[in-house]
């Protein structure tokens, strides 16, 4: 046990810092600092910069373009990106479908899809949940019937983030209804969003923005070659993916960055008044959250260390998901608290690069805090609700 970074690790940290200093574009920096939502193009531009440096797919095996980094390097990388307020990776390609393809896909699929994912040439989205299959994902009803060289897909997926931007969708579909367990008969299918019969219907979420969608499939013909792995084994592949997703969802580095910003903001003196941080209740809540987050940081490091010695992220990733999202939501609430009345104005128009600074309502981006708090109530619901995570822990970790 040793908490100090080695010389190599320190050198690596400097390398990442230098890269960010040189390559993180000024306009994206400014958008991030002002709380201005990024466009699709912004994400793609940033991810391509990472790709050019060879750092787009940190966790992938080296042979497919990954880094081969140690857990500590991954930890350093995530921390430095968060510290610089670099945009989060859009996970659907690199973090979700990519690992499924390189693990279970055919050579042909790997050649066809992985490079475009790595280079952010193709935008992916996820087709898992359905209106009737949320927590009970395995009861999904989207059907894919084999007709010659095609699967004909019918059904509806929902909560599909950024489907409006996506070129491709990866789906869990039912290829066999005559099964004993509903987890059987599910297959993992890759579908081109431009195929006739695919229709995207926006869902406006609580804060008024368009982030998620329903995706309808009406007799959509999908070439058989887009089936990943074996027919009927999709549940297994999807579950592995979900465990990866949960590990990602923890978002420890991002939360550390946000907590530091919140402490900074709350420590700043207010015109004519004392800083919020001198309010004992607020500072104690912030401290308690810092402690929980520090704990989670080490829980994640321990998990990464276990993965490094060959263990797959197992049901323990549920702990990261539950705690990670609880901490994010607690941060959201504290940001809103710190904003006070300025959490209330709903002024999306001022979140543009060309909006005149002097007309801005609220100190900094206070008027985004409530929206973020509302929107991020989803964090304990998506990716397998926290209730489902506790079921998993009870069953697979505690053996109840």
């Amino acid at each position: 046990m040793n908490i100090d970074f080695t010389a190599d690790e320190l050198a690596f940290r400097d390398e990442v810092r230098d890269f960010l200093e040189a390559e993180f574009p000024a306009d994206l920096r400014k958008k991030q600092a002002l709380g201005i939502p990024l466009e699709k193009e912004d994400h793609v531009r940033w991810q391509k910069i990472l790709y050019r440096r060879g750092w787009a797919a940190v966790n992938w095996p080296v042979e497919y373009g990954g880094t081969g980094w140690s857990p500590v390097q991954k930890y350093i990388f995530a921390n430095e990106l968060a510290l610089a307020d670099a945009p989060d990776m859009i996970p659907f390609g690199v973090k979700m479908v990519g690992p499924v393809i390189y693990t279970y896909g055919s050579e042909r699929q790997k050649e066809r899809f992985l490079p475009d994912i790595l280079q952010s040439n193709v935008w992916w989205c996820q087709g898992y949940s359905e209106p009737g299959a949320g927590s009970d994902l395995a009861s999904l009803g989207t059907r894919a019937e084999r007709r010659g060289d095609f699967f004909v897909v019918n059904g509806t997926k929902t909560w599909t983030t950024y489907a409006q931007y996506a070129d491709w969708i990866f789906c869990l579909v039912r290829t066999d209804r005559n099964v004993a367990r509903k987890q059987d008969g599910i297959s993992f299918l890759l579908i081109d969003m431009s195929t006739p019969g695919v229709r995207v219907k926006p869902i406006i979420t609580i804060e008024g923005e368009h982030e998620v969608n329903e995706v309808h499939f009406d007799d959509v013909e999908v070439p058989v070659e887009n089936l990943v792995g074996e027919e009927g084994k999709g549940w297994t592949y999807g579950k592995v993916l979900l465990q990866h997703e949960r590990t990602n969802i923890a978002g420890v580095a991002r939360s550390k960055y946000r907590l530091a910003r919140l402490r900074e903001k709350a420590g700043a003196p207010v015109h004519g008044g004392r800083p919020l941080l001198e309010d004992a209740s607020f500072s104690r809540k912030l401290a308690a959250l810092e402690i929980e987050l520090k704990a989670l940081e080490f829980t994640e490091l321990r998990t990464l260390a276990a993965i490094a010695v060959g263990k797959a992220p197992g049901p323990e990733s549920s702990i990261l998901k539950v705690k990670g999202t609880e901490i994010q939501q607690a941060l959201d609430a504290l940001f809103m608290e710190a904003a006070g009345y300025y959490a209330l104005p709903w002024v999306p128009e001022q979140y543009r690069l060309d909006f005149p600074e002097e007309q801005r309502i609220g100190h900094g981006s206070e008027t985004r805090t409530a929206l973020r708090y509302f929107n991020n109530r989803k964090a304990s619901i998506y990716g397998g609700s926290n209730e489902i995570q506790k079921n998993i822990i009870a069953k697979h970790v505690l053996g109840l």
Partner: protein
Amino acid sequence: MDFSLNDEQTMLAESVARFIDHEYSFAERQRIAESEEGYSERIWKSFSELGWTALPFVEEDGGLGGSAIELMLLMEAFGRGLVVEPFLATVVLAGGALKRLGTPEQKSRWLTPLISGDLQAALAFTEPQSRFDLFDIATTARLSGNDYVLSGRKSVVLNGGAELLIVPARTSGAQCSEEGITFFAITGEAAGLGRSKYRTVDGHRAAEISLRDVRVPRANVLGPVGGAASALQDVIDEATLASCAEAFGILCALQEKTVEYSRNRVQFGAPIASFQALQHRMADMLIAREQLRSLLNWAVMLRAAGAPEARRAVSAVKYQVGTAGRRIAEEAVQLHGGMGVTWELDVAHYFKRFSTLAILFGNADYHLDRFCELAGRA
């Protein structure tokens, strides 16, 4: 000591509930909230015809002499109905300032049309730096001939686009001093008065107000020069309790809707209502709701009785709204799953209004501290 409503109170409660049922569907509410004005003139007229805008005023001012009890009944129903009309801003806050501080002339000029539904009004009680400190007022008013000249900024003024603005400003004293606070009535578009209007996250309306040497005639001073602090405190106390009643109505709706949803939502081959982990959480929601009802009754009865402990009780309820209430609201969204965070479902809008109310007039921390201070201890 008596916990029952009298006949008039029961009738009031029934009549508001009926109005909401018949005239104020969720779809209608959404239409109103998304309209340019953000409230319905027609609905507002009905409020006045039904006597609700007259409720918290004494009879000699043209009111109905309702106590905190009647106001609670009304606001609870408004909460259940998710009413966006600016009742709190116009009637409770601005009306509350007028009824406490206005001369008979001032009342007939402003309170009478307010009660008749012809005048919208706002009380500009917050400033960019003030957070929840009511007496942190940097806006200044200096006498110049027969006018006061006001300069400063007021922030997040509820219903800030209203014709009548009531503006507390400092005629003397240091920035956070209780001494030196004076109320001014400003109407229409006075020279130097800037209003930057916007929607709030709960579908209501507010504005940033800037005052650049705005001249206000002496006749528009409400109440004693430099001595309006206690009236300000009392208006806000009344409004805080009213906001708690509205929050309680919302929480009742959320709790009931969650139970209903859980009965109908099937996962794993059974209604989610049958899962014990969720059952216990819904039981917790009910317990919290009943506890909140009790506190609200306590505070309202104390205010109705004019008891000095009422101030402390108001802080107790507001604290509970901001803590246990928030847990109810968050659980309601969580148990609705993905649906709970969609614009389409009323649950999201209840949640946003609740979250606004939790901030208004001071959050849980602020009110727990006040509760401690009012006990005469740190």
